[in-house]
């Protein structure tokens, strides 16, 4: 029958790694979403020329492989003498990387709100801020949510690259066990299952929200 050397404490080691993955993902997605909201609102409201510096920087974050960004950022912070722990460096780099994608999601979603609807809001006397808060954001949220869920799930998997800065997250924990126990198939199945268990609730939450909103349309 099936036999494995994987012990309960090994499993706890993987769960701890998963905790690290969740922590990095949480800070990256939270920070990246807040920045993405800010940048996205700027992008949707100023001309392309005025936003050019922002567009350029965000394009860099989107184009350069995440691995290179992580390693370079870690080297730069060391040269600058910032003494940042790898966890902080990882979260900051991943947050900026997330914000670059989130900015485009937010900009697209804001642009998807019909001009006439916004004019209707403004013509009722709502200020720009009130229009944004009560009309544009709720409408844009419905457009942005599927892409944002996709981004979050992507970042969760991309966060595995922080193992290069020495963080023991889920994938790294799996690697360590594979090296020690020499059971790559089984351990990778377990690691994959844990990734799935973390992603599934997020994906379902998104699906539920979409379904509830659709019922109103």
């Amino acid at each position, binding site marked *: 029958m099936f036999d494995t050397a994987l012990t309960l404490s090994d499993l706890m080691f993987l769960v701890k790694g998963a905790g690290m993955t969740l922590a990095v993902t949480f800070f990256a997605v939270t920070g990246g979403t807040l920045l993405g909201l800010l940048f996205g609102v700027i992008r949707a409201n100023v001309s392309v020329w005025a936003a050019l510096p922002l567009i350029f920087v965000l394009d860099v974050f989107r184009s350069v492989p995440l691995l290179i960004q992580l390693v370079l950022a870690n080297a730069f912070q060391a040269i600058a003498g910032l003494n940042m722990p790898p966890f902080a460096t990882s979260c900051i780099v991943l947050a900026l990387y997330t914000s670059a994608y989130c900015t485009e999601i937010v900009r697209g979603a804001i642009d998807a709100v019909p001009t006439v609807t916004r*004019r*209707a809001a403004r*013509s*009722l006397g*709502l200020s720009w801020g009130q229009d944004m808060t*009560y009309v544009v954001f709720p409408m844009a949220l419905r457009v942005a949510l599927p892409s944002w869920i996709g981004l979050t799930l992507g970042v969760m998997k991309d966060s595995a690259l922080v193992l290069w800065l020495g963080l023991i997250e889920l994938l790294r924990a799996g690697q360590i066990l594979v090296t020690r126990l020499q059971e790559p198939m089984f351990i990778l199945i377990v690691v994959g299952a844990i990734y799935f268990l973390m992603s599934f609730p997020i994906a379902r939450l998104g699906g539920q929200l979409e379904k509830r909103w659709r019922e109103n349309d």
Partner: protein
Amino acid sequence: MIEIRDVHKSFGSLEVLKGVNLSVEKGEVVSVIGGSGSGKSTLLTCINGLEPINSGTILVDGVEVHAKTTDLNKLRRKIGIVFQQFNAFPHLTVLENVTLAPRKVLGMTKAEAEEIAVKQLTHVGLADKLSVYPGRLSGGQQQRMAIARALAMSPAYVLFDEVTSALDPQLVGEVLDTLKLLANEGMTMICVTHEMSFARDVSDRVAFFHQGVLAEIAPPDEFFTAPQHPQTREFLSNIR
């Protein structure tokens, strides 16, 4: 009173308003007719400051709309506008659509705003749709909701921008009936419209818009029986 004096407006190199003059008195209903792209709708969005103008002045109750010192958010409270389409806020119920501006702009409590909203929605025949989302309404019901929403701000003027043009023919009547009701109650209205029977039966004056200017403006009897301007005659003969 709305006074439009020698207003010019361009989009890039295209001049859509070429010196428009029009005065609308309190309680008056003015219908604006004319071909597509003649600048009728642009004029309405200029009146409440949604569009800047290149020259000329627009005065609403003596306040210059495009002056830098004018508080547009405040001015817009007394100018309601209903557009051709996409009026509804789709994420809010009918009642919430109507109460949003009274609550956020006029600072009413929820109860006060709802009282007014229910009154206005009853007025336009939507009393049974309060908790429904706009996506479940027909086009005609959505337009009537938009009218109730504008009226909930107790505006002094309401501008209608081809409010029936996007509707199925069988839904046009219910919206026009609502407009007639308002007109009979003495509301000051400027209606950009393609509905000639509405222009004839309801308006105090009918204005013909042609190539960026008001070519002719007259009471409906005169306008439809003895049009002066050759372009008016041609337009009217084409639609008959």
